[in-house]
Each structure stands twice: as structure tokens, then as C-alpha cells.
């Protein structure tokens, strides 16, 4: 299926620790832990002392990362049971953070998008937040018809989990809701739905 390039499609440029920041908050999901672990050599004791790690394994192949992150001996290190609890904690942490704080987000696109929403609500600008895509290509998709959001979409088209329409997954991305847009694929000829392709495994 031809997917035309769309400007709103987020670009994740990768995470590098900014030594000038006075506090570092790493928000990591599953294999996103590697985005931090792989820069061990840049993590001086001074940086680590001012580092907070918020990690969630989710259902990904996140095994073993919890121990590896703990071994970094950062200022604080916390593993959340679910993405929702992590986002709630992030909101509290950013609520009292100051301008010397750098937030880094790594994980799947759906996770990055949701953490980014919390950060934007806290007054940060997306261009000042380094992000790194790790793990599955699964997308968080909003049905433009019923507005319901379906997590972990790996195929296009897919069936909306809220209203049951067959949706074509576009690259059109909403930063405000942190999701790609899904549009009905068989509007002209109901029932004529192409075979789903696994585009986002």
C-alpha cells in the first residue's frame, strides 16, 4: 500500500545525554532502556546523581532491563507496573521540575507520544525533548470517525476496536493526542477491504 510522506509524521532523532542540563529524567519503555544503557560511558557520576529513571517493561521483550538500569545507580530509579502509572508519576515529577531539567523518552511510538503529551502539558516544547524509537513499530491510532484510540496496531487496514470500521492507517500524526489517524477504507464500496498488511510489527 502506497503511503505518501506526510509532514506531521514524527522523527525520532535519538537520545544523547546533554551534559549542560542540571537534571535528567529518563522515561523508558521496554527495549527503550537500551537507549540509556548504551551510553554508559557518557554517564559520569555527577550526571547519574542528578538522573531519575522511570521505566516500564510493558509486554515487550523488556526482561532483564530492570536489573541493568538499577545497576547504573542513578539518583532515583523506579519501575512502573503499567504505562498509566508511569505517566501519572511523570506528571507529578514534571509539575515541580525547573528549566534546567532535560526529559528523554525512549520506547515504542505510542509510548513516546503519550509521554510527550504529559511533557507538553507541563509547558515543555517538543523540540527540546530528545526521543528514541526502540522496539516494536506498533502504532497508536485514533479512528477519525468515532475518535476511539486503538493501541498496538500492527496492520493496515485494521478493525477499529471501538466502532468496528475498517481503517487505513495514515502517516498523519496528531501531537495533541499522540496518535496516528485511521480513516475508513471501504466508504465507497462497503465490504471491499484489502487484506491487512503487517506494516508495523
Amino acid at each position, binding site marked *: 500500500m502506497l503511503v505518501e510522506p506526510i509532514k506531521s509524521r514524527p522523527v525520532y532523532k535519538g537520545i544523547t545525554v546533554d551534559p*549542560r*542540563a*542540571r537534571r535528567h529524567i529518563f522515561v523508558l519503555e521496554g527495549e527503550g532502556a537500551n537507549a540509556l544503557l548504551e551510553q554508559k560511558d557518557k554517564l559520569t557520576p555527577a550526571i547519574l546523581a542528578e538522573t531519575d529513571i522511570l521505566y516500564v517493561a510493558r509486554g515487550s521483550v523488556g526482561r532483564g532491563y530492570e536489573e541493568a538500569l538499577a545497576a547504573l545507580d542513578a539518583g532515583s530509579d523506579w519501575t512502573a507496573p503499567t504505562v498509566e502509572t508511569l505517566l501519572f508519576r511523570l506528571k507529578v515529577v514534571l509539575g515541580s521540575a525547573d*528549566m*534546567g*531539567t532535560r526529559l528523554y523518552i525512549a520506547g515504542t511510538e505510542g509510548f513516546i507520544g503519550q509521554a510527550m503529551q504529559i511533557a507538553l502539558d*507541563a509547558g*515543555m516544547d517538543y523540540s*527540546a525533548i530528545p526521543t528514541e524509537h526502540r522496539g516494536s513499530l506498533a502504532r497508536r491510532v485514533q479512528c477519525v470517525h468515532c475518535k476511539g484510540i486503538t493501541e498496538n496496531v500492527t496492520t493496515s487496514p485494521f478493525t477499529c476496536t471501538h466502532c468496528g470500521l475498517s481503517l487505513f492507517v495514515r502517516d498523519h500524526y496528531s501531537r495533541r493526542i499522540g496518535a496516528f489517524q485511521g480513516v475508513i477504507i471501504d466508504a465507497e464500496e462497503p465490504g471491499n477491504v484489502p487484506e491487512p498488511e503487517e506494516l508495523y510489527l
Partner: protein
Amino acid sequence: MSQTDFSVRVASVTPVAETIKRFRFERVDGEALPIFSGGAHIVVSMKDGSVTRRNAYSLMSDPADPSGYEISVAKAEESRGGSVFMHEKVKVGDVLTISAPVNLFSPDWRGRKHILIAGGIGITPFMSMMAQFDKAGVAFELHYAVRERARGAYLEDLVARYGSARVKTYVSEEGTRIPLEDILTRQPLGTHLYVCGPDRLIAGVLDAGRDAGWPDYNLHAEHFLTPPPGKPFSVELTRSGKTVAVGEHESILEALEAAGVDAPYLCRGGACGQCETGVAACEGILLHNDLFLSDDEKASGKKIMICVSRFEGQRVALEL
């Protein structure tokens, strides 16, 4: 006069401090001027004998007041003629041409809080910004430093208008300095910082901001350069077929205007990018003085900002 210019009469000239005067302009036809946004500037054209000088000045009156515009002009120590002309020649009742307002220093309205840092006459863009912040109920702090009290424009006025909690003043002659580190390390997320004043102040504040861990995105500066003097040269223009001589104390843009060539411009200070001009041929060195082109673009030798940059060598041709 282009369509976006206005013919204005000088309604008042008020001495504000040593070497600083405030000018009020009202339209000759009595019509309203456009309202503008905080941080905007206008370009004032001055007919000084056979020379037309054009200088950019920040608007400092209330942006919502269309009855007139006010600017404050400091007599520059190394004036190229503009500020001296404004101080010595311009009188109440004179008619001048001004451009429509242009804003290259607009605050980020998504910001939760705004820190304004001014040095000397750099206070002017913040005066219109503060009027707008105050009306909109947006949190701001002004930190305003001057060398000596006698040269400090509006020191007392601003404290009286916005209160000593929001306006802090510093006088270097009296040994008070902006406590940058203290200011920068206690700001909530979503704060934006703006600095306007001498180059040294701007560089110092931006550096201190980065050292305090601020993202570049939240640090803003109003950088206007004055065209530096240099060796005279001449430019060939490929489209109009003219050859124009550029004098020692003249920018390429000023020389073109004097020769009747209508070249695009906005800020006249190397910041906005409007006067970007293609270089058709160059046998020599382009002396890039602007803040707009990237290092790669400067090195490519294909573009020049004619408001501040110069040339040294045999021959240069511009696509104009």
C-alpha cells in the same frame, strides 16, 4: 514610499535620560496606524541632505494604541549618522516616512512565564511586550541593567507601573548586577527568556542560560547589527545591468537604494533573512557579517545578506 509605508508627523520629542530621546509619530492624514505585537520594530527613513538613512527602532508604545507610535533613540557613540540625525535634526512637526511594523522578536505565547533581560536602550522592545503581558495577565519578570542612573531610561516609570516584584533594576556604577545564576536556576518548566542589549550582555546571558541547562529553544535574543564599515568596492547587478559603488561607511543595500535599485529588506540588521541575495560571480572574498546564513551557506559563496555583509576583491556580481 511603498504601500506598507506611512507618512508621519513628529508629535513630540521628549528627553528621557542623558543621550536618550523619545519620539512620538502620528499619521499625517490623521488615520489610525496598525496595531502591532509586543517586540515589533519599524524602519524610520531619514532624509539627511542627499542621503536617505534607514534605521530600525523597536516600538515601545502600547501595541493596542493605534493613535501613534513611540520609539526611544539612544545617541550611539559610534553613530553611522542615524541616531545623531534623530537627536540633532528631528523636531516636532517634521514629517518622516516609517515602515509598517515588523516583528522579529515576538514572545512565545505558549510560554507559562517570561523573563525579560534588558541592557540600556535594549529596554525598548520589552516596553510593548510588557504592556501586552500585563493586559493578558501573563506572568513576567523584567531585569533591567544600566551603566549609570542618569542614562537609565524609564527606570522609575517601569517600577511604578508594574511594581518592584516584577521589575528589578540594576546600576553597574552603583555595583548592582543582574544575579543571572539565581534567576536562571529557579524557573518553572515552560519559562522563556528574552535578552536585548549590547552584544556582550546577549552573549553572556545566552551562555549562562545554556550552562543552567536551559534548552536553546527557550532562549531568545534581539540581535540587530549595524552594517560595519570596510574598504570601498563595486557590485555588478546581473538583472538591472547596473554597476553600483559601495562606499566605506555604506552597506550594499544602502548603496543600491541610493542608486535607485529596489532591493528587498526588513530588519536591516542581518537577522531576518529578507535581503538574501544570490551571488552570480565572485572573484574575491565575501565578508559575511549576518546572523542568518548557516556556516555552510556562507562557505558556499552563493548567497549574501546585503544589509550587513561586504566584499573584498576583484569583482562581484549579484542577482539583482
